[in-house]
């Protein structure tokens, strides 16, 4: 229990919620995830010094803190905590304090969402690559510091992109700034010297923010980040390639990505594509799905500020030839899906709920990293395991997302389910355990481990896990931030 004294003290300058109804909204709404405890309270700190105070009080009162930046529903389990804890909700910190077109950069606070940010950036002729159809309340900060993939792989050199610099608070309550923002000088002084807080490493010989990225709130609480933004296309011609043979599409994607051709790209199987396209209108789900071949790949082509039409034209020619060379066709429409509509759906907030959840109420998502040419191998693994649980192939959605300029790829399997059907839930729990184990055996890399993967993956490389423990001891020695995360 958190003492009334502490709650009263924190309540003086900050909003502190304790009503059970409110607290319940911070529970993980996913029957497949081992549920953590309901938070004792939700604290919405007024500003950074108050947040530092919250951390100091947590130390004093011996309770944990789980930072939250997105609005609910929370389904992945990232904010699940089995210790006595309070939630620190930063979703109301939703300012975009600075933007700079010349250096293609902007600052966001934790609560800024993709819709909000991209509307704002449009006014500057810029955009931030989005994950595949983020839900309305998804925090840009939370998503990018979780290495969630986005759909414009050409613009991602390194896994930490698009995060540039950060401000964060250690578990000790100390404030830190990483990357170029780390100094010397204040942000304003740096900007006077024409710095723009874009360099993501350091300060110095350590890459501080790398350690918070992917840490699921266990190493520090970020109060803002700067982001590398991209030019908004001035003209676009979204196209599709599609077919029943994934291998051909994969060959095509390799050919296109190697020389940095084209823009947004991702591969969906027909189930996933239909789910994405119908999340606002589930009634058309069957019709759309049945109209599609097995796989469909987005291929956006664009021009920017410089010679846009000519750029689009030469790229179109090259891409058309590359599609043809792989026995594919670059087309505007596949079945019931028009390319511009798919691109729009992929880049727009999908609504209050994750688009994966619309068909049946919920969805099991299993995702990991590998190389693009391993995709078919992992699809076979997922299907083979599914057979043992009577899950037919056509009920498995597939999303393949090249990342870091197609030097790796995010592979995601999704199985929609009805959360009220206990039998189905039980079956999927077992499937998740089985398929995750098989995937790990087949060398899938669960770089962002959630669900069953989070329970299994840290056994693979004990030295690395030990190192995470060492770092936890340095960044959060009192174990205040997301206690229990990764069994720390």
């Amino acid at each position, binding site marked *: 229990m958190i003492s009334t004294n502490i709650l009263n003290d924190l309540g003086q300058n900050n909003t502190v919620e304790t009503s059970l109804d409110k607290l319940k909204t911070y529970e993980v709404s996913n029957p497949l995830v081992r549920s953590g405890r309901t938070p004792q309270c939700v604290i919405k700190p007024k500003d950074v010094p108050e947040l530092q105070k919250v951390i100091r009080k947590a130390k004093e009162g011996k309770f944990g803190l789980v930072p939250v930046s997105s609005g609910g529903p929370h389904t992945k389990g990232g904010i699940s905590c089995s210790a006595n804890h309070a939630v620190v909700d930063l979703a109301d910190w939703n300012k975009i304090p600075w933007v700079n077109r*010349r250096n293609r950069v902007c600052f966001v606070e934790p609560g800024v969402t993709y819709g909000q940010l991209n509307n704002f950036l449009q006014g500057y002729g810029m955009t931030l690559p989005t994950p595949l159809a983020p839900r309305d309340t998804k925090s840009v900060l939370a998503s990018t510091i979780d290495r969630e993939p986005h759909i414009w792989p050409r613009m991602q050199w390194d896994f930490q992109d698009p995060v540039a610099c950060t401000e964060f608070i250690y578990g000790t309550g100390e404030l830190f700034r990483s990357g170029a923002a780390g100094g010397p000088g204040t942000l304003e002084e740096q900007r006077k010297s024409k710095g723009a807080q874009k360099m993501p490493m350091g300060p110095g010989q350590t890459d501080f923010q790398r350690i918070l990225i992917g840490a699921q709130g266990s190493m520090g609480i970020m109060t803002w980040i700067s982001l590398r933004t991209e030019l908004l296309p001035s003209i676009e011609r979204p196209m599709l390639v599609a077919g029943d043979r994934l291998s051909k599409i994969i060959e095509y994607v390799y050919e296109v990505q*190697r020389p940095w051709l084209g823009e947004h790209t991702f591969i969906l199987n027909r189930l996933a594509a239909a789910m994405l396209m119908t999340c606002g209108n589930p009634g058309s789900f069957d019709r759309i799905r049945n109209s599609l071949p097995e796989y469909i790949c987005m291929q956006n082509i664009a021009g920017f500020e410089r010679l846009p039409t000519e750029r689009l034209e030469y790229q179109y020619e090259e891409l058309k030839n590359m599609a043809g060379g792989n026995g594919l066709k670059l087309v505007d429409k596949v079945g019931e899906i028009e390319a511009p509509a798919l691109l729009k759906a992929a880049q727009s907030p999908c609504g209050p709920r994750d688009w994966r959840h619309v068909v049946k109420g919920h969805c099991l998502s299993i995702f990991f*990293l590998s190389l693009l040419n391993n995709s078919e191998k992992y699809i076979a693994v997922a299907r083979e395991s599914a057979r043992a649980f009577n899950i037919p192939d056509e009920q498995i959605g597939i999303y393949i997302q090249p990342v870091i300029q197609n030097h790796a790829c995010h592979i995601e399997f999704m199985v929609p389910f009805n959360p009220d059907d206990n039998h189905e839930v039980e079956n999927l729990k077992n499937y998740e355990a089985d398929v995750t184990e098989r995937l790990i055996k087949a060398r899938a890399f669960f770089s962002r481990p959630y669900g069953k993967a989070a329970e299994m*993956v840290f056994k693979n490389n004990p030295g690395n896990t030990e190192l995470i423990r060492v770092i936890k001891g340095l960044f959060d020695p009192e174990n205040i931030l997301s206690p229990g995360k990764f069994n720390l």
Partner: protein
Amino acid sequence: MLTVDELKELKDIVGQEWVKDDLPTRDAYSIYYNSSSLNKEDKLWTARPAAVIMPKTPKEISELTKFCNRKDFMLKPFSTGWITSSAPGSRKTILLDLKRMDKIIDIDIKNQIAVVEPYVRAIDLQSELWKHGLNVHAVSCGGNHSILASTAAAWGYGITGASMGYQARNMLGVEWVMPSGEILTLGSPGDGAEWFSTDGPGPGVRGLIRGFQGTFGGLGTFTKVGVKLYRWDSDPEYEVHGGSPKYVLNRELPNLGVFILMFPSKKQITDAGYKLGEAECNYSDFRMPAFFIALGFTDNNLELKQLWSTGVFPKLARYVLTVCVHGHSKKEYQWKVKALKQIVKESGGLILPMQQIPLAAFDIVKPFFKMFKNPLKLITRIPFIQEITDMMKTSEEMRLKLLTTAFFILVRHANNSQGGFRASSGMFTSVGAFDTWDMGFEQADYIAGVKRPAIEKGLILDDGGDLGSGGTFDFGHLGYIEGIGEYSTNDPESRKATKAIVEESLHGTIERSLGLPIAAFGGPMNQLFGPHCYNYHEMIMKIKAKLDPNSSYDSWTYSGASEKAFPDEKEGYTFF
């Protein structure tokens, strides 16, 4: 001194012939380029290492590390030893020269990833990669450096960064002999997968071992690294004629062009740099200071002196950006060249014809340049000046000659950066913080001012002051310029002046908020900068104490002089 028993123990680990404790060998490893910058007394010699060992496997390194955990000795690994941070910090340091670990372990052509050992040099890897239509980012000390070191252990700035990024960000997995002796692989290969990520599962623990700078051998030895590769859509090989030191390409390479862009002002060169990045025209780029251009135009120092003294270069070539444009296809190449030309025109710049200009020509234009403060500003206002310039042609050989010079700098890292300080016996560097292209020029201007008094007194070479060298990264997202200078390594006064310049620049970058300079690593530097940067240095000390409680690795370049070092070895220095 290692005892006979200790030597035997070491020899048992790596084999008799790979442990060197004879004086000549140890002395050969105690002198480095600019090593006099490492001590207050201006001594050329560093501490003499206790021994030099050349291990072959991670397992051997692990055993050597365990030895140092038990004994009063430390290890200091290096891959090529090119840079002075490879020097031993103590007489108790055993150097690990990793040149026997020289294998390209794998090239995954499809996924554009190489896995290499420490002594694979950039030039070796690039030669191999071009055969497969691939390329690697090489830092601009030249093709002689270790790709593993630039990826995992030390800096990562280079001319191909325009499209291939900073080398620390190209790391896709790393194998590490930790200070405990444990061998740990980080990222995807550590979990049994292929080499494609150093981050995860969960937190990016690689943040401990690789920041903007690296750990410079102060926190274990890296034995393998996965490297992100990039496309190469030109010929796999090229032929040259001529002879050392000037080879000339027999012909141009397809889909590849180099351009020398001249601008009358800082505003114009920076504008153009950003726009070229946005249009993705620059496969590689380099802000080439005027003095280096003069150097590139000449074959020897006498010519250089004559050319430089015409006074034409500081006015004509103050703001030059050399750019390599590389297209995937002919069509793409043409689009990029068109975009580049448009950008140069709208920024008020001029593309120099790709012609080695006869040196006599500079004597002819000298009076005109004397008359005006910024003659290039006037020249660029002449109607159709670019078209007129484009018509200037001498011979095919003169064209190929200049093209080759630019090609070897911008694309093929066949020369090392020593070529850049042919005019003196030594070079120093300063500032060089990484952030924006604009900030690069602020640093260049600042350091030019700091250098000026020493130039006027004749203490360092008169390079015009602004020898700011650098470029853009990730298609204009990032940028940097470092402030180079040339001095005489043989002249104590010149060395002293250089030290003073670098020292002043360290404090100046703090006062002016010009970012964390290249030299900000190691004990004294981190102590200086840490308090201005959220005390980052304290975390370094904590990491070192936690991971290396027995000081098994010499940490003068990381957390500061090691516990084991002798008292006289714990003093400050100014690294340049």
